[in-house]
């Protein structure tokens, strides 16, 4: 009797379908129904099927979990109805987003960590997914790689190896026929990273060590770099996560015009460490830099001054724009870094596309979100530990 599934990931269901396929293909699984069909002996009918103790315990646990999840689901649904009642909304069209907003409104929390605030989500999201019965009553595993301990993971590698072999065979065939198909080039996966270790673990419902994850990445890289890899693009895309689209190229603001008719752009929220400020760039200018009302001599050390003029010299606009900034908080380094980012961000509007890409590659447009790491109790500093004693 296979225990019911309750995890919603489609991939996992794919794997389990495989598991079930394998189980059905083997002819020597002893199913209770099969036995009853084949033998009508009185002895065998009365023979009690002895289920081993661990199997019993497992079945018991699985049934309990099932019931628990069902109960949770019922409670969730009831709770949702109550919530809609409270908020005066229609229960049919109440989505999960509405639930989240309602909870935030009813139970406002000042806790910093979002994971510690009150939440109400469907039980599948809250409780980590568990695998279904990996073996049947007689103790025979469904998955052919069950005894590796991480069947889904090794199934993955197995599939990758299979694809690799197929690609090699295809290449051999092509070479034999001396035909050159259209797309011989390898896949160009420019924007995107491989799925992270945590996400892979969630996908496979299994824990993976760092070494195994690196191995997985190596295998996928190899698959991508073989010729004709476009044939396996579906398989590869499953494990490919697109990076967040680059914000620097979107929504470049248009400059506004002041009384004299000069174009100007103001960048607010220039942050670096504890420095906060805003930077205004006027376009037809002479290269004047004014910081908090003072000249560039506001910074006494050369390093800060160099940082402030860095974006101007990089783009070559040092004599063609005027810069005016107000900044407070932090120290000289932090303030200089904030101004540098502010100037670069503002110069986006006055610069053409190729220079914009150059700025991005130079890292001028990345916001430096690093902050000072806190000191931990029991240690003298953030990372420094007390003297290490062997015993």
């Amino acid at each position, binding site marked *: 009797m296979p225990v019911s599934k309750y995890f919603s990931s489609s991939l996992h269901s794919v794997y389990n379908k495989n598991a079930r396929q394998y189980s059905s293909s083997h002819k020597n699984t002893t199913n209770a129904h099969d036995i009853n069909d084949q033998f009508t002996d009185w002895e065998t009918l009365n023979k009690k099927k002895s289920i081993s103790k661990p199997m019993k315990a497992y079945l018991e646990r699985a049934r309990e979990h099932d019931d628990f999840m069902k109960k*949770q689901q019922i*409670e*969730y649904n*009831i*709770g949702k109805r*109550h*919530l809609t*009642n*409270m908020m005066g909304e229609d229960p049919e069209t109440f989505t999960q987003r509405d639930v989240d907003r309602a909870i935030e409104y*009813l*139970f406002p929390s000042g806790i*910093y*960590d979002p*994971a*510690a605030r*009150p*939440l*109400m*989500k469907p039980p599948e999201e*809250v409780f*980590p997914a568990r695998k279904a019965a990996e073996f049947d009553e007689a103790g025979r595993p469904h998955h052919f790689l069950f005894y590796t301990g991480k069947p889904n993971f090794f199934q993955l590698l197995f599939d990758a190896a299979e694809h690799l072999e197929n690609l090699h065979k295809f290449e051999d065939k092509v070479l034999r026929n001396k035909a050159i198909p259209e797309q011989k080039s390898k896949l160009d996966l*420019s*924007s995107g*990273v491989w799925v992270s270790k*945590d996400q892979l*673990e969630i996908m496979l419902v299994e*824990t993976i*060590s760092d070494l195994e994850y690196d191995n997985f990445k190596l295998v996928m890289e190899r698959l991508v770099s073989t010729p004709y890899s476009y044939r396996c693009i579906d398989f590869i895309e499953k494990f490919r996560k697109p*990076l967040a689209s*680059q914000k620097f190229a979107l929504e470049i603001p248009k400059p506004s015009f002041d009384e004299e008719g000069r174009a100007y752009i103001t960048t607010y929220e220039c942050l670096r460490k504890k420095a906060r400020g805003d930077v205004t760039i006027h376009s037809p200018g002479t290269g004047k830099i004014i910081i908090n009302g003072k000249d560039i001599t506001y910074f006494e*050390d*050369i*390093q800060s001054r*160099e*940082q402030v*003029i*860095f974006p101007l*010299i*990089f783009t070559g606009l040092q004599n063609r724009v005027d810069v005016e900034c107000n900044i407070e908080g932090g120290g000289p*380094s932090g303030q*200089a*870094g904030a101004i540098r*980012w502010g100037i670069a961000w503002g110069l986006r509007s006055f610069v053409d596309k*190729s220079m914009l*890409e*150059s700025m*991005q*590659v*130079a*890292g*001028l447009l*990345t*916001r*430096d*979100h*690093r*902050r000072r*790491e*806190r000191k931990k109790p029991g240690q003298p500093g953030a*990372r420094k530990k007390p003297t290490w004693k062997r015993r």
Partner: protein
Amino acid sequence: MNLSKNIALICKLPSHLTKVRPAVIVQTRFYPRPTSFPDYFQNPVFRKEDQATLVESNELSRIATVPVKPPTVAETSSVYYDPLVNKVINHVMKMGNKKLARSLVEKAFENIKRTQIERYHLAKTPEEKAKIELNPRDILHKAVENSKPLLQLLPIKRGGITYQVPGPITEKRSLFMAIKWLLEATNDKERTVHFPEQFAWELLDAANNTGKVVKRKQDLHRLCEANRAYAHYRWQ
């Protein structure tokens, strides 16, 4: 509110406590804000020459789509920025006092420049004049080149005795040793002599292939040569 009892308020347990984890836990996971940039951030390319090479190989647009780390506080795209000089300043720096370290190294360069200009004016013929190197950064490069060791001695224990076995050295370690020796030689100075002056003298000597640091490198090479017999211990 009575109704609140019926709403299931579940506090989600942090995921890393529900699953089985290996014993080593990375510190950064516990903090709401990451303290450094994630792995997939690329290093920035901000020097004009490096950008030009990228443009030639048509890689610029590709890298522009990937997130890039910002350049550090001491890096600029200006003409007179040198990564080696930055490294030397970092090695000279103590307790994070970059201002002082930078001023010391700059004063050392100034001293080098003054001595070299004096020599230039004293030299009579144009050939002699052409031989004198006036740019202090070039002298630094040359000095570091001349004091980089090519092998290093690795202590390998066999049968209770620790042998000093000659072995290969990576580029990074070689550079580190060169800078470290230069600074050690400078710090063995008399009380009345200031750091920039002594550093200038050491650099000029090293660029000339004379002086304490080059001697130390040559001693190391000689030791390696002498211990050639133990080289096979690396593979035993």
